[in-house]
């Protein structure tokens, strides 16, 4: 037996199939997985928007005003709406998956999965509330 895991002796009589390019189209769970992977594009979109906002801010009030004007254009609003839905999907699916990765123990007791998932949502609500408060009071 070879030590190299990448090497399998050539057997012309073994039947092998590859994965078709649209392998994820046949099952809803796979489709959901691909959608979840694609949500990272929406997260990246928000990051890029933020970078442009910071740049506009550094260029003075005029540049910032024109950035804000761009945000009000229909295309920016549509892009934001789509990105927002994707980001919600991203957050919810990862929050629900987090107990799979985090096994936390207090003493000998393992913290139940629901508590770990719920603490993510709680943090989400707290941070969102803080953001709203900052925006409304400033």
């Amino acid at each position, binding site marked *: *037996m*070879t*030590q190299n*895991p*990448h090497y*399998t002796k050539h*057997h012309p*009589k*073994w*039947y*092998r*199939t590859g*994965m078709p390019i649209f*392998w*994820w189209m*046949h099952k809803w*769970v*796979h489709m959901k*997985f691909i959608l979840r*992977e694609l949500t990272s594009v929406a997260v990246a979109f928000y990051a890029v928007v933020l970078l442009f906002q910071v740049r506009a801010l550094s260029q003075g009030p005029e540049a910032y005003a024109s950035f804000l004007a761009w945000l009000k254009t229909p295309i920016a609003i549509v892009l934001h709406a789509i990105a927002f839905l994707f980001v919600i999907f991203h957050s919810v699916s990862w929050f629900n*998956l987090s107990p*799979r*990765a*985090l*096994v936390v123990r207090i003493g*000998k007791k393992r913290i139940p999965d629901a508590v770990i998932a719920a603490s993510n949502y709680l943090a989400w609500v707290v941070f969102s509330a803080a953001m709203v408060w900052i925006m409304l009071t400033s």
Partner: protein
Amino acid sequence: MPTNVTLDIFRYRPEDELKPVFQSYEIPFRKDWVILDALNYIKDSLDGSLSYRWSCRMGVCGSCGMMVNGTPVLTCATFLEKFLPGPIRVEPLKNFPVIRDLVIEMSDFMRKLKRVKPWIIRDEEKSLSEGEYLQTPTQLADYKQYSMCINCMLCYAACPIYGLEPSFTGPAAIALAQRYNFDNRDQGKKQRMEALLQDGGIWECTLVGECSVVCPKGVDPAGAIQRYKVASTTEWWKSLLMPWGSREG
């Protein structure tokens, strides 16, 4: 209740045909029959040339895994009744080369299993006079779930990442690495981590999660891999922030 049910079975006879074909067999339907009983009936009474693996008939040996209507299952634990009225499509486990009919080639899995060193590693063995390694029920509970793996490879058949990237070590082997990492008698965590941080290791996994869905033993390999990622990230941060500290966690 129907009196008969049809099975469409994947046949591949490399001496006769270049490509596999599906062959239909009509068998009597019995409520207490699993898919494996149906295959045994075909082999005994209809077509002795059908090849497939099986052994224990009770979900322990892990030999009889096949794709039934597109889902990897242990055929000894899957009732015919579930798929009525049929026809029921039986294929070899996906993502593996097929040697003949329903028999797959599994040496890739065996090599990967060996690579994660699924045995207890000690820096220094205790001498016999020092007695046995003791373990509390809580310490046993830490890894017991992962020790339930029967190497049936259903998780490999369910994993699209393994299908796309054959170098991926895969769900069962990583779960079995964790079985020993979480064992308080073991000291080989670092050696296994080295093997699993390379190409084809834990970071190939993008958490599709299907491995845990199909696992007949409730092992949750997907969870095991994610815990591995958390542990490796923690180690990385520790080595970055405290380079003088020991990396053995």
